[in-house]
């Protein structure tokens, strides 16, 4: 059991309790129990012991593969993740869904020497996993295993990483799973709202908003998967992180032996993607089987590289984060309009995330709620985030800061993200300093800079006939058609059942 700090907060706390004779408990109980202070103010908060979380060892192989090794000896397990550059945003429009299929069949399709089913049996007998996945900007191969099975499982991991076979029968299963997902994408109103809002911010055909269709999934071939693997899976496109109960120098030797001879390949390149936002205004999706409206007010947010990121983080906490934020207090607690309400200027790693206010409310208070959100946006100028709100937001971020690195795995994940997106590896420390320096003026400035009500799109997914007033009472309404484009002929049986 490691213990990187040795300060006992409890000696101090205990002493404090014995000295708290000035306070009387309201209901004294057993005499052996010391009396407790009865108000918040009399409880002293000791200084948090200094804590230096273990930092992973960074290794760069001559072929460009970057490796992070993070020892954690608490449990007898070893887990690893390889993140490979290149993801769904680089897929051509007529093959949308490629990295979903690839991310599944990479593993289920097996390797040159073993089928996916054989791997399943082999790994499950060891309660181990090797899994693959696809995401917007990367794909991954990861493993998890008990320490005693590391050699067996790592062998499978390395084989899957380098020698996948993409067997055709597994492509078919993956495609059917995708068709199922497409057929269900209008079943749940929250899912519709999130998907359509992204289209309003980035553009319907933009890689950050578009969705796979029956035809694009059907167009994906085994050769496409092979080509993708050939194009992207090179050591110089890979960041590998390993965490668990191992010795770093031995693990380093093991990984060098496995990967050092792997030749470099072409570096992945990401084309620049420009958002093409929809015209600001009101958008509506009519859903007749619900009694609650999903409301989203959206625009483009920022990236974390933006110098405003720190002020924006404080703003987000005060405006829409947690129980005591403005939106939660006003819209939920005081007005009782919503269970779910929130809002923030989103900050992406390498592209602007969404600026978004969202809530769901009963059909009969739909327009009332849009207006209530408008009041909150207008209130940012009339009633700027004040000193007390700033203090609460900063205290929240800074006092809970330790939870960003309270496990070796969290530290590892953080560093891997910095490496992947080209941030300094001490970005977390920079963030802490940045938050400490945020002033009321900074917060007012970013609120004014990023919130322009007239540039936002308002999306309502709900049962239009039950609204308190038509959405058109607020402005011109664009009705969105979310009909799922029909599958190509002959793709599925009983097509009439699945429009």
């Amino acid at each position, binding site marked *: 059991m490691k*213990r990187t700090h040795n300060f006992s*907060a409890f000696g101090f706390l205990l002493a404090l*309790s014995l000295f708290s004779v000035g306070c009387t408990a309201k209901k004294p*109980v057993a005499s052996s129990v010391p009396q*407790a202070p009865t108000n*918040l103010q009399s409880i002293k*908060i000791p200084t*948090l*012991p200094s804590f230096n979380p273990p930092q992973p060892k960074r290794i760069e192989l001559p072929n460009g593969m970057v490796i992070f090794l993070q020892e954690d000896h*608490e*449990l007898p*397990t070893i887990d690893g993740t390889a993140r490979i550059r290149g993801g769904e945003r680089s897929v051509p429009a007529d093959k949308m869904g490629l990295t979903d299929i690839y991310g599944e069949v990479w593993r289920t399709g097996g390797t040159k020497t073993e089928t996916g*089913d054989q791997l399943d*049996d082999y790994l*499950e*007998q060891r*309660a181990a996993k090797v899994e693959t996945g696809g995401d917007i900007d990367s794909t991954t191969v990861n493993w998890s295993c008990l320490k005693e099975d590391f050699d067996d499982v790592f062998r499978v991991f390395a084989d899957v990483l380098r020698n996948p076979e993409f067997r055709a029968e597994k492509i078919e*299963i993956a495609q*059917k*799973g995708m068709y*199922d*997902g497409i*057929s*269900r994408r209008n*079943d749940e109103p929250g899912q519709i709202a999130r998907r359509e809002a992204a289209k309003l911010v980035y553009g319907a*055909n933009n890689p950050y908003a578009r969705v796979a269709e029956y035809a694009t999934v059907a167009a994906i071939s085994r050769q496409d998967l092979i080509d993708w693997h050939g194009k992207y899976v090179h050591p110089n496109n890979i960041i590998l992180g390993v965490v668990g109960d191992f010795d770093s120098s031995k693990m380093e030797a093991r990984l060098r032996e496995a990967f050092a001879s792997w030749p470099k390949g072409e570096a992945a390149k990401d084309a620049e993607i420009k958002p093409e*936002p*929809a*015209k*600001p205004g009101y*958008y509506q999706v009519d859903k007749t*089987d*619900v009694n*609650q409206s999903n409301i989203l007010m959206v625009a*483009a947010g920022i990236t974390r590289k933006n110098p405003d990121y720190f002020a924006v983080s404080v703003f987000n906490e005060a405006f829409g984060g947690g*129980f*005591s934020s403005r939106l*939660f*207090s006003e819209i939920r*607690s005081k*007005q009782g*309009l919503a*269970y779910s309400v929130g809002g923030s200027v989103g900050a992406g790693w390498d592209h602007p995330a969404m600026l978004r206010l969202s809530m*769901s409310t009963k059909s009969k208070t739909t327009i009332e709620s849009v207006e209530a959100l408008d009041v909150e946006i207008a209130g940012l100028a009339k009633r700027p985030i004040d000193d007390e709100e700033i203090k*609460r937001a900063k*205290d929240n971020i800074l006092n*809970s800061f*330790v*939870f960003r*690195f309270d496990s070796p795995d969290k530290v590892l994940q953080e560093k891997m993200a910095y490496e992947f997106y080209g941030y300094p590896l001490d970005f977390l420390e920079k963030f802490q300093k940045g938050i400490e320096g945020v002033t009321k003026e900074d917060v007012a400035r970013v609120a004014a800079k990023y919130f322009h009500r007239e540039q936002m799109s308002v999306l309502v997914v709900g049962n*239009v*006939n039950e609204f308190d007033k038509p959405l*058109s009472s607020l402005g011109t309404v664009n*009705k*969105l*058609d979310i009909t799922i484009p029909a*599958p190509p002929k002959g793709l*599925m*049986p*009983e097509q009439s059942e699945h429009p």
Partner: protein
Amino acid sequence: MKFRITLLQTLVVCCLLGSLAFGQDLASFEKRTTVKKLANGLTIVVCERPEAPVFSFFTHVDAGSVQDPMGKTGLAHMFEHMAFKGTDTIGTRDYAGEKVALEKVEEAYAAYIAERDLPVGRDEAKLKQLEQAWKDAIAAADKFSAPYTNEFGKIVEEEGGEGMNAFTDYDETGYFYSFPINRLELWAYLESERFLHPVMRQFYKERDVVIEERRMRTDSNPFGRLIEQFTEEAFAAHPYHRPTIGWISDLYSFSATDAQKFFDKYYVPSNMVVAVVGDFKASEAMPIIEKYFSRIPARPKPDTATTTEPAQNSERTVVLREQSQPVYLEGYHRPDYRSPDDQVYDAIADLMSNGRTSRLYRALVRDKQIASDAEGFNGYPGNKYPHLFAFFATPIPGHKPQEIGDAIHAEIDRLKKEDISDEELQMIKTRAKASLIRSLGSNEGLAFALGQNQSRYEDWRELFRAVDRIEKVTKADIRRVANQTFAPENRTVGIIEFAGGPPAGPPGENPTVTTPPQGGGQ
């Protein structure tokens, strides 16, 4: 602030309850874990985990929606929301004045409800007056708490609290968050104060919030609608047939007085287990925790007798015809978590559902290619009382729910007629061991699991002892339990059938667009 109802969440609980471990882990936890039952009956479990200067806690209250009074479904969950509304010292400017004002709200509400619910002879004009009087009383009471909306949450957040939330399910209510370790005494104060002096302020606004929660999870979600109907059908007598979130008419009826009564009856110290895991020495933490939680006065343990669900002797089916895609769900009654066969059921769930080697995946997804997902699981809708072993699957386009049912039944028949293989049995046991090991690596997970086992078995070690029981499960056990459980007359089926797309809306003044018009950019 949520109630636990999704299948996934149920699965998580089952995994925690049904996993195994090595003996040496229990030995290590024996050294790190201390239990103390206070004089008032409240149980404290503390576990040392010095990995980082933080701690997590779980307060388990052994009362859930099963304890909701008749006509007041949703009350356990409603109280859970109220436990975030502060105390007589947190969230008020003048509690003496507020107390009187809140009593007036209750009087006004009772008068309003009495008139509203008159079976005959309701006076509409009088009703309007009474409603206004109630709203005026609320406004008067709110003046005492303004501007301290959500003061309790505000304190936790500004002190660095992480992941503050709570859940209510059929069996229990849980409260949890994490703090940096230097806030241990502050936490002990806040968490004990919360259950020493809760105040039912802003109750009716919060009730509106809860009703929105019902609209989100149940009314406006096809799967939410299905499980409400399915559960109601599967249980005829036991309170599991009622929704945790509450029926809508009950939500519009119960009062702050009802919530306070629920609290008084069920939030008694002997009904509560507080588990704390983190970077402390038990010898130093326990006195602090004891000092604060000892303040809660002892009260008699409530009568929690419920009707035992009688044997089901006819197959039951609910079919929802929806605008959404089909879903198949079925459940079989099984005994509660104390059953000697509990781990046999866990073994069956693992065999049928866990990963791509599972029988349901291989039969329905890989071979027949009729489903995108298929699994079987225990603990629906709870596990403290006799409950269901359920199967759930989603047919892929072109396949009907009935086909799914047939395929699941074929797999069940195999289970009844043939022994599972040696490899399968070994895999179940190995996986259970590994899954327990992995569950021990977080303060939150440990606080939940140690506290729940202490609450259910009066011994946290049951978390580890399940290992011995699953190790003893035999092929014959699996066949025996499958045969006694998976009988058609013991089955309830819930289906969503696709009934066509939404009706065409009225013609509007604006054209419908697939691609929104392009804007000027930002």
